[in-house]
């Protein structure tokens, strides 16, 4: 089991299509089709209630993009978003920060020590396979409905991608390169500084990206079931009152949070990995 623990990357991440980049049309083709897809989707959604008569019951659950945009705009304009957003964001930031602080050193440790790795492997495998949501009632029982329950939920969600990727990155350090620096008289610290850490960097960044998604999920779930305030609480209340536009507005804010963080990690990654060959196709 130890040897084959699969690396956590966004394996499901969409692939860049391998079209020959020839001429303006070819270069813009994917963008045009992609933008077109989104525009058509929004237009059909917007036009639907005007074309089809919805039953009274369905109407209650229906909203349109323009309504969602309007609600979102109102939330920012009146400032009603800031309190729940800051509550959610602080839970997110604290949990993710703790996961990084704990996951990085632990990952390095089990990457360098086969014994420790063998001993912790059953726990990591079990916790990683299990949806962390299962611990939610327990965490609420232990930590109550406040900030810390949320932080813990985010933490256990984000910890494993960081931990496992750090471990893989450390373990996959090229033996030849370690020999190279050793042959020049490097000590353990030099080996870590010159080979192991730079090698693990792309893995860690990939883990971080995955962890962001899990952390957002953690915030949402924790707030759905065990919080007094936050964006998720606002959404559950809105759903109960049939304010569907407000639910979608909350979803968009969460997605935005996730996208901004991912973009920040992307910037970090590009700065850290200038030395890597450009991926085919580009971003």
């Amino acid at each position, binding site marked *: 089991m130890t040897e084959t623990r699969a690396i956590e990357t966004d394996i499901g991440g969409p692939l860049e299509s391998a079209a020959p980049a020839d001429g303006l049309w070819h270069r813009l083709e994917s963008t045009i089709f992609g933008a077109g897809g989104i525009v058509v989707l929004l237009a059909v959604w917007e036009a639907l209630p005007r074309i089809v008569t919805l039953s009274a019951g369905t109407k209650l659950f229906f909203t349109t993009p323009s309504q969602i945009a309007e609600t979102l705009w109102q939330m920012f304009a009146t400032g009603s978003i800031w309190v729940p957003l800051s509550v959610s964001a602080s839970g997110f930031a604290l949990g993710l920060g703790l996961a990084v602080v704990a996951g990085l050193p632990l990952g390095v440790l089990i990457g360098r020590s086969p014994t420790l790795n063998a001993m912790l492997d059953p726990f990591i495998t079990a916790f990683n396979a299990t949806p962390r949501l299962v611990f939610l009632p327990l965490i609420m029982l232990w930590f109550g409905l406040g900030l810390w329950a949320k932080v813990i939920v985010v933490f256990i969600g984000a910890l494993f991608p960081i931990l496992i990727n750090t471990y893989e990155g450390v373990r996959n350090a090229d033996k*030849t*390169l370690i*020999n*190279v620096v*050793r*042959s*020049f008289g490097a000590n353990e610290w030099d080996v870590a500084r010159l080979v192991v850490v*730079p090698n693990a960097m792309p893995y860690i960044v990939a883990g971080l990206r995955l962890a962001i998604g899990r952390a957002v999920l953690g915030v949402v779930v924790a707030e759905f079931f065990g919080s007094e305030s936050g964006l998720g609480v606002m959404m559950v209340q809105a759903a109960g009152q049939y304010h569907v536009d407000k639910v979608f507005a909350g979803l968009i804010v969460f997605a935005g949070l996730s996208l901004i963080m991912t973009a920040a990690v992307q910037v970090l990654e590009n700065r850290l*990995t200038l030395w*890597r060959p450009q991926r085919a196709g580009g971003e």
Partner: protein
Amino acid sequence: MPGYIQGRNVNLTFRPPNRGPVRALSNFDIDINEGEFLSIVGPSGCGKSTFLNVLLGLVKPDSGDLQIQGKPIVGPGTDRAMVFQEFGLLPWRSVQDNVELGLELKGMARDARRKVSQPLIEMIGLAGFEGHFPHELSGGMKQRVGLARALATDPHVLLMDEPFAALDAQTRDLMQVELLRVWQEARKTVLFVTHQIDEAIYLSDRVMVMTKRPGRAKTIFPINLPRPRDYEMRTTPEFNELKLEIWNSLKDEITV
């Protein structure tokens, strides 16, 4: 008179986890003269690369006596440097920073390092590529960097572990010429491991054939071809005769 590098009864057995032990070297004897170019050829897995790692000080033999200039080898040292088969360049470091790796680990200051690395980079013909990363270089260019890095610490002994095996045939030929030129200038003692008999003869003062594992020295062929050597020499009858002799010695050791 003891050799510049002298090995007597060197034994080494690997004990990999979950597998049986592998005897890599058995009563291995070797003598290398100062400034000599010695090649080692042998069947795959005969322990020739292992021996280089032992000489480099990365692997400790189980028993036996191994000395350089009368001093036993206890670990890596700046009197020896290795050129690796897969180049072994740190992918996150530029050409210049790769060349300076050994100097940096010796604790040399940045300016002093530049003074050493710059002429070396010029010598290997990579002036203008100092800031490039390894992935931007061709295989031949990468191995030039590997060679410059090994020379930067000014070692007495250069260990080369199939350094040109990952290159295409033409690049390989050019790199051999280049290596001879550098060797003629720098006058290092070179220990060169290869699979190619041609390459061994063309470069070396002596060629050592090893037995199959556990590896021992089987025969040593002196190569008394005049230097400087040129490419045409490979077509002379003397060259081909040597090639045949060495092949005859080697082929008994090879099991397909």
